[in-house]
């Protein structure tokens, strides 16, 4: 076999580095999986290989942690916020990609610039603002789904808009022009011609927006009530309670952690091709 001209590492270095990376990645994950099937009592005893596989952890944890409710809340909050974010993003990206107007560059710039506002700075003022709004008009925001939804959709919009802007810019204008000549309005052309063509891009934007809400702990810890707590906060609270407890339920905690990570890891794996395109535009990881 001919040597690949792109080979920049001597084979021993490449093989050594690859093995190193694989071990460093897989060992902690294997440890998490192992602990998740270790009986809670044996985790603290310092035994590495459990006496038996405690698959029961995966059954028990649903009643120990309020995992089901957290999962449902996370699904609703992230699902609704990402759906709205994508709808807003497609509209804005369409205008940005098709027309030249004053304020176009500031708008594009603001997509990126506003992301550098530290989120922790907005947390308390947002809480204050939400409580003022819900006293003034009967629209509850704190402890409901609405509050986190509107917050996450705002934070998801820059990346979603940027992804859609790139995507729509690559769709030829001629297709909508035909519709316009046939008498359609711009908005009809957008809905009937552009959106169907942009669906693949929208799915990617939806995935990235979904993850914004799923991974957040900061806002969820203040804006949700025990009934609307997301999975992330549910787990964080549970973990905090273990530190002081007499018998920490570490096995079940790891089981719950695996279940929390799985949906996101699967989504990313399915869409990893697009991860590369989306990264520079917005911090995927908060």
């Amino acid at each position, binding site marked *: 076999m001919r040597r690949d001209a*792109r*080979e*920049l*590492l001597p084979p021993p270095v*490449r093989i050594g*580095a*690859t093995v190193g990376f*694989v071990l460093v990645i*897989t*060992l*902690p*994950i294997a*440890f*998490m999986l192992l*602990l998740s099937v270790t009986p809670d009592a044996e985790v603290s005893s*310092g035994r590495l290989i459990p006496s038996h596989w405690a698959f029961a952890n995966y059954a028990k944890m649903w009643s120990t942690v309020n995992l089901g409710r957290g999962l449902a809340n996370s699904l609703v909050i992230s699902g609704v916020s990402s759906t709205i974010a994508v709808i*807003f993003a497609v509209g*804005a990206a*369409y205008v940005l990609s*098709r027309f030249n107007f004053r304020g176009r*560059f500031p708008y594009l710039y*603001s997509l990126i*610039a*506003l992301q550098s506002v*530290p989120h*922790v*700075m*907005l947390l*308390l*003022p*947002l809480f204050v*603002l939400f409580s003022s709004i819900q006293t003034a008009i009967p629209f509850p925001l704190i402890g409901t789904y609405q509050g986190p939804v*509107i917050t996450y959709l705002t*934070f998801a*919009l820059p990346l979603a*808009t940027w992804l859609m802007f*790139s995507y729509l*810019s690559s769709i030829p*204008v001629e297709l909508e022009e035909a519709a316009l000549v046939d008498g359609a309005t*711009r*908005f009809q052309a957008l809905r009937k011609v552009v959106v169907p063509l942009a669906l693949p891009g929208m799915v990617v934007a939806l995935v990235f927006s979904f993850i914004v809400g799923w*991974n957040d*702990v900061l806002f969820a810890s203040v804006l949700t009530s025990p009934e609307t707590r997301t999975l992330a906060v549910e787990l*964080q609270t549970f*973990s905090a309670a273990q530190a002081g407890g007499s018998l920490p339920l570490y096995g079940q905690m790891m089981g719950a*952690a695996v279940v*929390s*990570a799985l949906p*996101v*890891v699967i989504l990313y*794996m399915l869409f*990893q091709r697009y*991860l*590369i*395109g989306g*990264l*520079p*535009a917005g*911090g995927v*990881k908060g």
Partner: protein
Amino acid sequence: MSAQPAPEASTARRKRRSGRADGDRPMWLLWPRVVVVLLIVAVPFLIAVYTSFLSVDQYTLRQWVGAPWVGFDNYVAALAGSNVLSISALGSLGISVAFSVLTTLIITPVGILAALTVNTDFRGRALLRSLYLVPYVIPTFVTALLWRMMFLPQTGLINRFLAAIGLADVNTYWLVGAKSFWAMTITETWAVWAFIYIMVLAGLQSIPVEQYEVAELDGATSWEKLTRVVLPQLRGLIALAVLLSTLFHFNNFTLPFVMFGTPPPTPVTVLPLNIYLTSFNLFDFSLGSAMSVITLLIMLVPGFFYLRMLRLGEVTSR
């Protein structure tokens, strides 16, 4: 950044033909984002700046607008005094800077090396590329819990390993005291090195194989190809990646918050965590706001360079 010129600019032809269509430009589609940004970012931002000059605590929070004006007192307190957390904003700033710079310094060579291991064609490359992404895509709150277990005395894999090779006692405490900073940094490094890897891999893929072949014909060694052909072309990209990585890690809240619980050990009290605790555990909302404003001012420096590097205007108005 693949921003393209608005087609309208190049097709003046269409303007003439469909003057009517220009009339119904759906510009209102831009407004939803403006509204939510005003509500969620702009107004809270102004409230934060305003409260940083007041004295707002849990008693005055309900009528915070009428809280007493104290000028720059909060800023002085943030920079000078140490509060109950026994760490000032300045102390936390030092931790944040050390944490984000150190993490970036470690992950940059690691990420480049990782990208180089999967740049050539071989069986199993796709699988390896996916595997490299896994730590990066695990939600931060899960990473925090996972590494909390890794660092536990006696039980954790880190201590078992270090004890096995005789480097540390199996009962070493990583989650409290001075070592906690290293526990946090090691965890972050494990979680985020793929960020540099993805950026560099994307850059590597844009270099045509012919360039390597020409260099080879000229008798270049692998090392010369790397330092003379590849890295010079990726310089801008790597600089951007380093800048972004420093920015992101500076704002990390979730990892120390979930990994160490409340109250956290002092060495992991990064600025965002300090602001959170000052506001929601000590209820000194004004001090928290002043600390956020200081954070923002510091972020403006790398933020400015970031916007300049993107050169959005140049690309879009070509």
